[in-house]
């Protein structure tokens, strides 16, 4: 499999805080890569660097064979790299359909308004929000807003989707629905890079997992490898029994 996204030695410092330091990893075509780590480990910062919200101080990011280091987010999404936000950012005054249409209009294919609306209706059906199309975005529940984030990103026609904690704060039923959705997205051939704290889900879904701690890459490997890694257990999982139990559930 070929690498879709590759980062080499990426670093970012905020004042006295080294948020991300010398992180390298690759995402292959069609794969789901999980990104885990304790709070403040630099996961969201890494996302922000990858999609261009922050410029890295050092390092290089290559996406689909192109150097995208320091490229602004609005250009990155046109190359096929879309994302969701941990703290949801719905366009509150607009309807659900309009929100998704923005994604389709300004995404990879830069669709015209009419086509964008058709694409958006399909995407909304896919994520199970078709009946909410005309509701104002502000009226959605948290789960709805997270789905909307995913729908908006999907409408952009991405090759790679960055999901920033789309499961956090959802009820077990909603989590199960979202997991199904992520699987469906991958079946469409979209690669997924996801930050997640809901361990069972990330272990179940991911092909490989990258662990961050204090801005550094602590481990990388398949879910069983990562769960068995003593450093990871110490830094994040806390207890080797928890790790065992997680793997049993898989």
């Amino acid at each position, binding site marked *: 499999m070929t690498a879709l996204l590759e980062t080499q030695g990426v670093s970012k410092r905020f004042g006295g805080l080294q948020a991300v330091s010398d992180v390298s990893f690759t995402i292959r075509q069609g794969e789901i890569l999980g990104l885990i780590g304790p709070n403040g480990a630099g996961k969201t910062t890494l996302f922000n660097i990858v*999609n261009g*919200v922050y410029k890295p101080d050092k390092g290089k990011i290559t996406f689909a064979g192109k150097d995208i280091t320091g490229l*602004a*987010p*609005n250009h990155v*999404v*046109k190359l096929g790299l879309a*994302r969701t*936000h941990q703290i949801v*950012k*719905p*366009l*509150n*005054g*607009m309807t659900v359909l*309009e929100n998704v*249409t*923005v*994604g389709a*209009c*300004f*995404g990879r294919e*830069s669709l*015209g*308004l009419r086509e*964008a609306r058709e694409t958006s209706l399909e995407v909304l059906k896919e994520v199970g929000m078709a009946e909410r199309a005309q509701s104002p975005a502000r009226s959605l529940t948290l789960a709805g807003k997270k789905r909307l984030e995913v729908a*908006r990103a999907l409408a*952009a026609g991405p090759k790679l989707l960055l999901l920033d904690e789309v499961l956090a704060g959802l009820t077990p039923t909603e989590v199960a629905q979202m997991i199904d959705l992520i699987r469906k997205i991958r079946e469409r051939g979209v690669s997924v890079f996801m930050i997640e704290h809901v361990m069972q889900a990330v272990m179940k879904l991911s092909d490989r997992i990258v662990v961050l701690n204090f801005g550094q890459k602590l481990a990388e490997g398949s879910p069983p490898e990562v769960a068995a890694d003593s450093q990871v257990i110490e830094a994040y999982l806390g207890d080797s029994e928890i790790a065992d139990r997680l793997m049993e559930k898989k």
Partner: protein
Amino acid sequence: MIFKRPSFWLTLLLAAVFIYLPLRSNDAALREDLILVAVAIILVSNLNLMIGYTGYVNFGHIVFYGLGGYVGLYLVSARGWHLPSAALTAGVFVSICALFFGLGVLRLRGAYFALATVGILVAVHAFVSNFDPWGRSTGMYLPFEAYEPLGGAMRALWVTYYLVIAVMALSMILSLAIKRSKFGLGLFAIREDEDAAVVLGINATVYKAIIYSVSAFLPAVAGALMFYKNGMIDPSIAFEYMLSIEGIVMLMLGGQGTVIGAAMGAGLYERLRSYLLTQPRLSNFHLVIAGGLLLVVVLFASRGLIEWLYKFVPRSREVIE
């Protein structure tokens, strides 16, 4: 298509009424009243593109109108241009100026942007007041011969009136077209959440600069027409700070983000203003009313009068945009 939108035909109907009413009775006083309403609608419609569509409060909107007036009057009086080409050139020139201003100040957001727009207004005012070719603080006068190409001063008044009405209709149609376009969708996304809009693929810097520049064009054309009609211009009437702020009141009163609401607010407020201004006992009392209105609107009807209409007649939301 825009021709299918009821608001498009409503706009044309409004323009037709504006043309017909003073013509029927050959009533010059009515014409002068209506031209002020039309100018208010032009200013507020274009201000709406910034405030209502993009979410950027422009306190210095009047600068486009004044600057357009200066360029237009200068081209007619000192260069001997005809009115239409002078007015169009004024529009293009001011739009280009706005593009440069915009690329600078639109890096700012929220209150900082609003402050910077006040700065632009004060700076342009100061520049014009000291600019020799434009007569410094005494301004410029138009000789009577300047009206000859339009068939004399009397006819020129009517011609400029029709032109202003045309610019008014164009302003509303422009607002409508932008609202129903992909470009407009991008602007609304910026208004709701600029960071999210950029992540979704919108080049916010370029979009904001373009709409700032677009919102300058028709007000500048209107300025050129109006000061040609008045035959004179000086810095204090060209850059009337109060009018800039009253424009915001009119917009909020009618309903920001809507085409018909903006026009409605402009019309209502302008009539009220004219009434109060002509009451001898109430010198400048209209400003008290403006302040009070702004308070009431912000507190009780932050989305303007049009929202009441939508509430009582829900179907009107589809028709009256």
